[in-house]
């Protein structure tokens, strides 16, 4: 029986020292998935788990037009934050469309960013071929009943989805991740935080061993940006997205002067649709342009039987969401 050591330090430096010094140690972060993977599914193994729940990283503040969110702020706390309610309604929508109230009361913002994929090929030790779990072993999901899997940033090596709702809204708004580790502090834009699977699906983000997320900075948009998060899922709550869209438009005299679009439920990472934004900027906010943007956003998908429908569904959702945001009538 593997013996697991559990530590719960009070200070960030202490936590970093504990994990940095021990290659078999990990932060207990992304708890709802970390504990599943460790205790229930037996997919990952650690010698020591360092619980960061007591670190002084909870709460929000606004400095210079940026909302700083401590990594152990819970999802429900952030959804109830006055600044979020007033200035970042799309973030609130994304938060409240994720998981269940019970989970959101426990789950943290840092944990949400670091949640592991739900792919049941990754999560079941009975499956031998999983490049994410056992690099080089292949991917069994590409030949299985994949449906809750990625079509963007995916390939034959891995189609595991990043299932967060929150991150979709955050990448659209250019959130920045605050990181601290044995070598000090650094900041990485969320759009550059995740690593697409490529040849190494086991590498999911830029964090080095011993580094942790301390906070997330969300720039507060200037007035006039209209934004919305829309999620399509099989059941009405407590379910991951088949497809979701975070869209924001600033429209001046009928023309789009600022466009932000990100997609969930389709990407191996929270997906920023840069090309669609480029296409929209400077154009009229009308259905033809929204369709063109949707077309561009889903260019070159990697589909397998079971995920093909997501291409069309994502395009329909993009058009629908841009219509909502632009105030266009159906």
């Amino acid at each position: 029986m593997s013996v697991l050591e559990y530590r719960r330090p009070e200070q960030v430096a202490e936590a970093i020292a504990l994990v940095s010094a021990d290659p078999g140690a990990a932060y207990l972060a992304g708890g709802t998935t970390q504990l599943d993977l460790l205790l229930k599914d037996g997919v990952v193994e650690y010698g020591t788990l360092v619980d960061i729940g007591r670190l002084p990283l909870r709460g929000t503040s606004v400095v210079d037009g940026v909302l700083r969110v401590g990594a152990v702020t819970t999802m429900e706390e952030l959804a109830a934050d006055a600044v979020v309610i007033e200035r970042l309604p799309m973030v609130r929508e994304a938060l409240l469309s994720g998981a269940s109230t019970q989970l959101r009361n426990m789950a943290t913002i840092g944990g949400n960013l670091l949640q592991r994929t739900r792919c049941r090929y990754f999560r079941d030790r009975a499956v031998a071929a999983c490049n994410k779990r056992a690099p080089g072993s292949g991917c069994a999901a590409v030949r299985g009943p994949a449906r809750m899997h990625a079509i963007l940033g995916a390939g034959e090596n891995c189609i595991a989805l990043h299932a967060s709702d929150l991150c979709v809204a955050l990448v659209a708004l250019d959130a920045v991740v605050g990181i601290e580790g044995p070598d000090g502090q650094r900041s990485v834009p969320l759009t550059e935080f995740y690593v697409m699977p490529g040849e190494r699906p086991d590498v999911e983000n830029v964090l080095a061993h011993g580094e942790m997320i301390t906070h997330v900075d969300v720039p507060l948009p200037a007035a006039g940006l209209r934004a919305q998060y829309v999620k399509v899922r099989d059941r009405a709550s407590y379910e991951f997205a088949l497809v979701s869209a975070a869209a924001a438009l600033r429209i001046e005299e009928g023309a789009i002067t600022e466009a932000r679009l990100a997609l969930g439920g389709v990407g191996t990472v929270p997906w920023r649709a840069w090309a669609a934004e480029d296409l929209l900027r400077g154009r009229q906010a009308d259905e033809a342009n929204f369709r063109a943007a949707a077309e561009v956003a889903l260019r070159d998908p990697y589909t397998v039987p079971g995920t093909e429908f997501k291409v069309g569904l994502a395009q329909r959702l993009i058009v629908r969401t841009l219509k909502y945001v632009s105030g266009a009538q159906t």
Partner: protein
Amino acid sequence: MTAPSPNKIVGEPVDRIDGQLKVTGGAHYPSDVGYPDMAHAVLVQSTIASGTIRAIDTADALAAPGVFAVITHENVPELVHEVMTPFGPSPRFPLKDNRIVHHGQHVAVVVAETLEEARAASRLVRVEYDETAAILDIDDPRAQVTTNPYEMDVERGDVEKALASADIVYDERFHTAPVTNNPLGPFAAVARWDDGRLLIHSSTQWPVMERHVLAGIFSLDESAVQVLVPYLGGGFGAGLRTWPHTVLTALAARILDRPVKLVVPRPQMFTSVGHRPETVQHLRIGATSDGRLVAIDHEGTSTTGAEESNLEPITVVTREAYDCPNLATHDRLVALNIPNPGAMRAPGHAEGSFALESAMDELSHRLGIDPLELRLRNFAEVNPQTRLPWSSNALRECYRVGAERFGWHHRNAEPGSLRDGEWLIGHGMAAVSYSWWATPCRATLSLGRDGGARLRAAATDIGTGTYTIAAQIVAELLGLEVDQVHVEIGDSALPLAPPSGGSGLAVAFGGAIEDAAAHLVRAFLDLVRDDDRSPLRGRDPDEVIATNGRLQLSDDPGVGESYTAILERHGKDELSAEGETDPTPKAEGMTMSPAGAFAAQFAEVRVHEELGLLKVTRLVAAVDAGRVLNEKTARSQVAGGMVMAIGMTQFEETAFDPATGRITNATFGDYLIPVSADIPDLDVVFVGEPDRYNPMGIKGIGEVGITCAPAAIANAVYHATGKRIRSLPITIEELL
């Protein structure tokens, strides 16, 4: 029999008498049971679907902390492997040899001092396999097919001739996905042996059957086995078999000579305790242009496990549904390398009625006749198979009342004609009969000097309200308050009773209670037959009524005395009486066709025209349940079936990996059941009269709620969108 009861307790919406125990944690489910020196067992399951075990290495597991034993096919003691039950042979014993017939087959059970130690050690059991090609597809030509597997196929008239001369012939195929019962309470067994006797706390819906199977497997007299299940966290049919994990728990306890507990974790529930199998169906219907059915041919194929049997009569629902002179039904069973299916709420009927009632809707649109009117034109006045009059049938009233409450006749019948912004709105309906099935039942009823009654039988309450309805029946028949009745069930040592299954327990148990109550009243009157001090001296049962804790003359209420007074005067602590009933229809000499519940359901859906989102916004069920025993628990039963139907229609699918036979969504995070937000207000209304066939007038309702809702919803989807979906579940991609 006593005169008609003056007490009005049966039918009232009495709160569950076990409700307080349940919400305060006082109701002990099998998984709650513990003993001081109890060991814990964890199952190790195969990671291939077909082949043999070349080697199984248990050394590391045995060396792990706390481990007492690892049982595999190599060291398993000799047992009897197959015991016959009314549902066919007991499930294949997985450790009988080194062969693997499905992914997730038990290959070892690890027993340790703590659950954590057992679970950790279970990951150290190393199995090497010689894999062979698995047969996993229902259409695989290599699969073994059994035709007429239940010997329930029927033919009447000349179907082919009638189809050839019909004005219109409908010919379509249907598919339903495999789904899994998923009772919230994980199945558990806690076994202990004392002097060669086995006591087992077990998640079963049928303690008497479980006793029979375990006695057979362990070569014991049935009196040496006791099965306890006072409470069960749901079953939906999963508890109608004695599954291998139960046998292995009893075996481990015998080997270790100490109590052993095994709780099946959720992912293993998908492979260990059955599921509703996948089906494909082919329906051909011939009709005249004015909507008279002239022929129905219904073929239904379902899957079963290799070397397993399963009772999944898909087409049986069709033979008695409509007045149609020419009919043929055929069932087929295809054996695959999948876990053994089993009964799941309305087995066969839920799938069969989806096809039949979707077809009726489709036919009505092709004929240009209102779907409800088409059904009325083909209403079966008598049982169309036996030509016997129904013991009761208020299906017409179900149609009428359901349509009224729903507002059916106000709709625009044109598909795609209703809309609210981006949402298309549709209305659909379907109807069904669900007959009950039960075996003989006995009960013992006693009345003590404290004035309270005690009812005992080996029945079960799987969450449906058996405790409560039994107490209500006793209270009404003996003239007591409900809280004066103590109900003891869930113990195989009590008088024989049928399962909570087949919608039959209430019919059988109610009959046995009624018989026992009559005998008990007679016993009191016998006691005072020559008693000079009793005002009831020399009276016969038909002269008295029971009310307010006493027996009194029905035509002179002042003349009578209490049960307590009689017992005290005669120095007795209590009087007891036995009751029994055999509700099984006889093969010959029947003058009526025992009817099951009838129901019509009406659904309203909204479909997002661009995104394919489907939302059921209204569901109305009008049910002829005969005499309703408790309006509250009856409503809950039907409403629960409707919720399950929404799951089956929109969300649920047990997804098998086509290459390996592994279930890829065996968790509640991945296998979707409805959440509250998916469920609209459910309108359940009861119509009809007490049934004539059984003395209490009861018709079982455990399953009728799930049977026609899937078709009603699919028909509403057609009305909303013009898309006919003949495959369940109806997911977003089908509506884009």
